């Protein structure tokens, strides 16, 4: 590389060195190991090369396919949930105005981040509880006895009960991302639109939403990553059941690795998840490309 090019690009690469140094030191080796072992039968001590067998077994496994299907539903709903509700909360705070009120709401919405998620999970477990859960109790008091059911134990409702868990789905991070960016939007454009007679809804749909596309992309990518790796909630609530009604690939990966000591197979599921997330991310970045 000649000096002119060095001068031009050198700083860029130099600035990236710290990030790469850390990732090289701590994350690439485990990643590469996982990739390699997805082609082996591995119990952490001995590994035996078996080519694509893990992948073949995975795709011929009806439970894995069922898990992928469930995952599709989880991920799509997760993305919708993670955009609509935090965005609505952030927009409404700006709508009502008043710096003191803003402060209270803003702090209120991020407060749950400080506490362990397990309390939320327990709370919902007790909402859905067939015997003395809140939902069935309310239905009974309205005389809707036939509507009561074991929400998590019935294969027709279990998946949707898990999806509804956590309502109103306002995660602190997504809320902060939207709140910060709405605050950063150029006020001139909005004022101009208002003078032209645009109402609140039009300001939202015509000005806010298009300007927030980078944030939508960001939240979508982060949500997809979180969604495909999430298994703790499902493990605690239903353990993937009843039968296979709520199972997902991440649970299967967890159980293969730490339950059956089949790290090779677990790695193959992990690599498959990685490829899916990567494909979705590239799609997200390319297709929803914004010009500025």
């Amino acid at each position, binding site marked *: 590389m000649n000096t002119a090019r060095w001068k031009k*690009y050198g700083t*860029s690469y130099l*600035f*990236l060195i710290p*990030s*790469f140094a*850390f*990732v090289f*030191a*701590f*994350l*690439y*080796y*485990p*990643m590469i190991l996982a990739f390699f072992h997805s082609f082996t039968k591995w119990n952490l001590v001995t590994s035996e090369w078996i080519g694509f067998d893990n992948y073949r077994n995975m795709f011929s496994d009806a439970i894995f396919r069922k898990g992928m299907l469930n995952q599709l539903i989880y991920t799509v709903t997760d993305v919708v949930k993670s955009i609509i509700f935090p965005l*609505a*909360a952030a927009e*409404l*705070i700006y*709508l*009502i105005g008043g710096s003191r009120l803003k*402060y209270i*709401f*803003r*702090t*209120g919405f*991020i*407060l*749950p*981040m*400080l506490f*362990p998620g397990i*309390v939320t999970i327990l*709370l919902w477990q007790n909402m859905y509880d067939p015997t003395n859960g809140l939902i069935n109790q309310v239905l009974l008091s309205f005389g809707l006895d036939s509507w009561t059911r074991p929400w998590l134990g019935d294969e027709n409702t279990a998946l949707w009960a898990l999806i509804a868990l956590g*309502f109103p789905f*306002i995660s*602190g991070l997504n809320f*902060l*991302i939207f709140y*910060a*960016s709405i*605050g*950063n939007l*150029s*006020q*001139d454009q909005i004022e101009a639109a208002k003078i032209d007679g645009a*109402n*609140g809804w039009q300001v939202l749909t015509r000005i806010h939403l298009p300007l927030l596309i980078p944030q939508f*992309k*960001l939240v979508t990518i*982060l949500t997809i*990553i979180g969604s495909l*790796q999430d298994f703790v909630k499902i493990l605690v609530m239903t353990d993937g059941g009843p039968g296979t009604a709520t199972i997902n690939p*991440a649970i299967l*990966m*967890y159980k293969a690795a*730490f339950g059956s000591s089949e790290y090779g197979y677990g790695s193959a599921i*992990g690599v498959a998840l990685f490829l899916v997330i990567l494909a979705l*991310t590239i799609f997200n970045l390319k297709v929803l490309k914004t010009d*500025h």
Partner: protein
Amino acid sequence: MSARMPKWIGGTVLVLLLVLTLIPVLMLLVFSLRDNLDILIDFWSLPDTPKWANYTEAWKVVKDSIGNSLFVCVVTVIGAVFIGSLSGYVFARHQFPLKGLLFLLLIGVMMIPSLLTIVPLYATISNLNMTNSFWGLILPYIAGTQLLGIMLTRTFFESLPEELFEAARMDGASEWYLYLRIAMPLCIPILITVGIVTFLSVYSDYLWPFIVLKQENQTFTMAAVSLNRAGSSDLGLSTAGYAIGSIPTIIVILFGMKYYIEGMVSGAVKS
């Protein structure tokens, strides 16, 4: 849709959303004053008499661990915010060969399920003789959490107007100056966001410290989980532990939010 939505409708919806969001926090505080057996028998009721003993007992177990957690969190946040925003700045404002690929090489790491990397990562830490050391937590944490910082700051640095940078470059400012003196101050809210999120995710992590550290050096979550000592879980005691452990994080958040708002104000000024 009516032409103008009355403010009170928005207000009501907002209050409703806030209350629903805060219910788990309220439940946690109620549990922390109840006896575990009492919770087992009737989940929804309030305590007859608040059981403050939960707090005194939990305090004995968690008190030493909070300082450990704060040390790990603060060092990680400083490292991750600095390194992450530096890369975020480059990806947002520079054009150079292989940019797309390098970006994917970094954020691609986030897409590997962390469960798979735990065992090999521990081997790395063990080879570096960092087991039972706080650095065995901090360094991998920086490596992992900076990635979110890169993504977030990139998005925000990209939204800054190019003229700002052009003008400074004309005046002969270095890239380092542009990053530190122009880009950073304008993006305080997002840096605070990254800091808060990094802080909280590190503070609440359980599995990795549990593997790396011994009990004598335990972090807050390790201590809190060890409060579940009744054979199954002891909800009363452990929620009291979590309530105690949330005090430093509340201070961090309130402190952070102050600068968050100041940053927002300066962000508004620039445009």
